[in-house]
């Protein structure tokens, strides 16, 4: 279980947010909302261990994630603004690299591509894909192997309606299997039974 206590962060000599207490249980989805600049991306990076909070701490089953960042890394999947693709490699090779890097069997790659409707594009270099196709290829990592915590920063950007539904379905399956999701979004990614957590604009 992921929890934060009294989280606050100062960036550029201004408090982005203070005193965030957030707990995510298995099977739960939290949707981060708030105006631009409220700190949604910042919070997700803190939860991923990519950024250290100025005050407060993030814990997993009671243990601070800062004590063992690598173990924390192995239980989460983070999808940020970048798609983490090498444009010179094919879709398949891009995904296969991430599979090998995390020790997942490469066989999972074909399924993951199919899952995101990219089966036919496997041998296309990522460089010629459209914005939404690239985004889907980036999200295909989620389907490689199960990990308990998904942290998604505006995952629906550039996706068409069909792909948004696909993603919603993947999140649903993930939660059904006991996974947790924290997702920042502005638009209508509708997740049933999701808890909304609103970040206000700091003063």
């Amino acid at each position, binding site marked *: 279980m992921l929890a934060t206590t009294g989280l606050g962060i100062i960036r550029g000599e201004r408090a982005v947010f203070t005193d965030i207490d957030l707990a995510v249980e298995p099977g739960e989805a939290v949707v981060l909302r708030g105006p631009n600049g409220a700190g949604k991306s910042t919070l997700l990076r803190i939860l991923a261990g990519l950024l250290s909070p100025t005050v407060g701490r993030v814990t997993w089953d009671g243990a601070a994630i800062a004590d063992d960042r690598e173990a924390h890394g192995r239980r989460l999947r983070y999808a940020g603004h970048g798609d983490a693709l090498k444009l010179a490699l*094919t879709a*398949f090779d891009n995904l296969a690299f991430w599979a090998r890097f995390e020790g997942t069997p490469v066989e999972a790659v074909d399924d993951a591509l199919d899952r995101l409707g990219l*089966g*036919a594009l*496997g*041998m296309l270099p990522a460089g010629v894909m459209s914005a939404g196709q690239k985004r889907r290829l980036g999200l295909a990592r989620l389907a490689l192997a199960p990990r308990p915590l998904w942290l998604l920063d505006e995952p629906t950007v550039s996706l068409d309606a069909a792909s948004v539904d696909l993603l919603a379905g993947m999140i649903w399956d993930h939660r059904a299997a006991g996974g947790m999701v924290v997702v920042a979004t502005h638009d209508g990614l509708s997740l049933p039974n999701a808890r909304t957590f609103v970040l206000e604009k700091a003063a």
Partner: protein
Amino acid sequence: MDAVATFLAMGGYAGFVWPSFALTFAVMIGLAVASRRALRKAQRQLELLEQSRPARRARPGKAA
């Protein structure tokens, strides 16, 4: 025998003359063979593709 030996000796410059010719022919034959091979490969791929137009997954990258 002698004629061949003197010919091969190239007036004492065998070490310069023969490598020159060898390199020239190596480069030219190499380029020619590589070009032929690229041509053959392209032709084969084209045939394959035209035969199997409606085939499921075309993955030339893997075959190569």
